């Protein structure tokens, strides 16, 4: 499709999509719609490894970017680049407007109020912001209202065994700094978080319950409601890692009821260098700042300073304006495709990916059915190391992730050090999965493993 400076990002169709017969609930993308989506992603046209078409199945690590997003970033620099939230000139006004419109776009996309969206450099920074904000509250910063975030020896922080290191290590560090105890919910043999364990592990001592909305290894989607309910019973703050869910599922953070959520821009068709911390307004207003300096202050004297209300309180220094603007366009792009349609499409991809389970020697690590599961399929090939599996797939032009996917404890839980992982996005086609499957089926023969 052609793109403009103010991209809309919906496939332009001559006729309405025909609903897929086997998908009565939501209309997945029709072949025409998918073709239009794929045409928006220039990188999908390139070849790799001696002329093979790129089959990109590493969207769980980072997604590719559609033209409207690429154009938005370039357009910002070409036409509106200026410092935001200062300056009285026209460019400053336009840059600020683009920056704040992007915030509104992302807020709408995830069911949040605009003041509840804090730009960060990524999801990792967002989670660390909460953890260090709590640290500062523990040190007495932020006054009485921040005391709800203070931790004392004997308090507990609860995470899960399924977490990405980004939602584990910051809590280990917070525990170490405050004397709090880190506990965790286990996962079952399918890689699903044992939610029932929260009744015992989440207690009156629990101050934080941090968990992933969807595992970046197993693809398992966590039932958020019972965990939020349990956290509320005991007065614990909930922190949701929504990196894998935001790009792939319809999401309403207010409806989910979590206190904080973190997600990255680059996994949801947006640029690198930008992510989001969502916080319930009341909590963001009480949380002390972490990074301090310009742009986040009200009055500065030599002896002390007062700070802006959120979200600016958490946005010290020059922001990643062009990236934020482009992320706003990415959210609009997904929103206009319709997240129900995106999820329905990806469910078809999930089912196709899960069918690798019938290849001899291939074992899926995670749920084997598409229920409450994303198109993130990790697997091992008996007798062949994940790195070697990935190399053979790469030779066929198929890009997958190999290793521990920043989730060593989860791999240890399954007694393995590494898996290969195929992960999809809205632009993934069934043809991609066919190429992947054919290549995967030849791996054991290549290494002469019976």
């Amino acid at each position: 499709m052609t793109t403009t400076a103010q991209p809309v990002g919906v496939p332009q169709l001559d006729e309405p999509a025909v609903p897929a017969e086997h998908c009565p609930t939501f209309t997945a993308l029709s072949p025409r719609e998918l073709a239009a989506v794929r045409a928006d992603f220039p990188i999908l046209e390139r070849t790799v490894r001696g002329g093979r078409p790129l089959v990109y199945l590493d969207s769980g690590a980072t997604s590719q970017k559609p033209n409207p997003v690429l154009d938005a970033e370039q357009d910002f620099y070409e036409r509106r680049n200026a410092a935001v939230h200062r300056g009285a000139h026209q460019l400053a006004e336009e840059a600020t407007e683009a920056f704040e419109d992007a915030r509104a776009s992302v807020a709408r996309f995830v069911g949040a109020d605009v003041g509840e969206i804090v730009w960060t450099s990524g999801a990792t920074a967002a989670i660390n912001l909460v953890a260090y904000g709590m640290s500062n509250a523990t040190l007495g910063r932020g006054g009485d209202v921040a005391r709800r975030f203070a931790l004392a020896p004997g308090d507990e922080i609860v995470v899960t065994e399924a977490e990405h290191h980004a939602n584990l290590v910051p809590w280990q560090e917070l525990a170490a700094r405050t004397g709090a105890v880190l506990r965790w919910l286990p996962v079952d043999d399918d890689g699903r978080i044992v939610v029932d364990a929260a009744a015992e592990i989440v207690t009156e001592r629990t101050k934080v319950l941090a968990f992933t909305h969807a595992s970046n290894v197993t693809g398992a989607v966590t039932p958020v409601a019972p965990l939020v309910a349990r956290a509320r019973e005991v007065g614990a703050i909930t922190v949701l890692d929504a990196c894998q869910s935001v790009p792939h599922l319809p999401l309403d953070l207010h409806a989910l009821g979590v206190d904080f959520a973190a997600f990255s821009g680059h996994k949801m068709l947006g640029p690198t260098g930008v992510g989001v911390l969502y916080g319930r307004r009341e909590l963001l207003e009480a949380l002390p700042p972490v990074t301090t300096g310009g742009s986040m202050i009200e009055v500065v004297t030599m002896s002390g300073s007062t700070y802006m209300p959120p979200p600016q309180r958490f946005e010290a220094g020059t922001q990643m304006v062009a990236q934020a603007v482009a992320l706003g366009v990415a959210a609009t792009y997904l929103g206009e495709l319709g997240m129900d349609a995106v999820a329905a499409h990806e469910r078809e991809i999930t089912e196709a990916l899960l069918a690798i389970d019938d290849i001899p020697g291939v074992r899926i690590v995670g749920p084997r059915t598409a229920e409450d599961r994303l198109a993130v399929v990790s697997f091992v090939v008996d007798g062949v190391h994940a790195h070697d599996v990935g190399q053979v797939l790469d030779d066929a032009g198929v890009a997958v992730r190999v290793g521990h996917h920043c989730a060593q404890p989860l791999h240890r839980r399954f007694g393995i050090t590494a898996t290969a992982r195929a992960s999809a996005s809205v632009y993934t086609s069934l043809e991609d999965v066919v190429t992947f499957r054919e290549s995967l089926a030849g791996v054991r023969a290549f290494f002469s493993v019976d």
Partner: protein
Amino acid sequence: MSSLEQMYQQVILDHAKSPQGKGLIEIAPGHVGSESHQVNPTCGDEVTLRVDVVERPGADGVPVATVDAVSWEGQGCSISQASISVLHDLVAGQPVTEAERLGEIFRELMTTRGKGLEDDDDEEAIGDAVAFTGVSQYPARIKCALLGWAALKDSLVTAGVLTTKEQA
């Protein structure tokens, strides 16, 4: 031959299937022992490599610090496992200085982006390890091939028979 076949030469596949020197062995009485544990944090591959060093008479009768034995334990991809196995075959019985020279040559091979070594003597010196030339075309896999060699260098430094501790 495809790039993939160039990387996974038969000699590499054979070493990966039947790794040599695997299983840590005791240091002989009176010998100097040392080991090194190396991890590739991106994939979790790891190796513990042990060297057994003793002075043996050199060509001119002067005692020379010699790698009497190399043994190792570890897990990882076929490239890392085969590389350690080849290392074992090359280094066991060699003077420490020769072991270090072989490591230098192998590290240089890994920088050649698939072109291979220019010096024929160097190529001859590393024997089977020439099969890793194809690996040097894949930047992400060079670390796999170097895992064991990093452990060798570290263990020789720890043993006190190598004085430098440069990055492998």
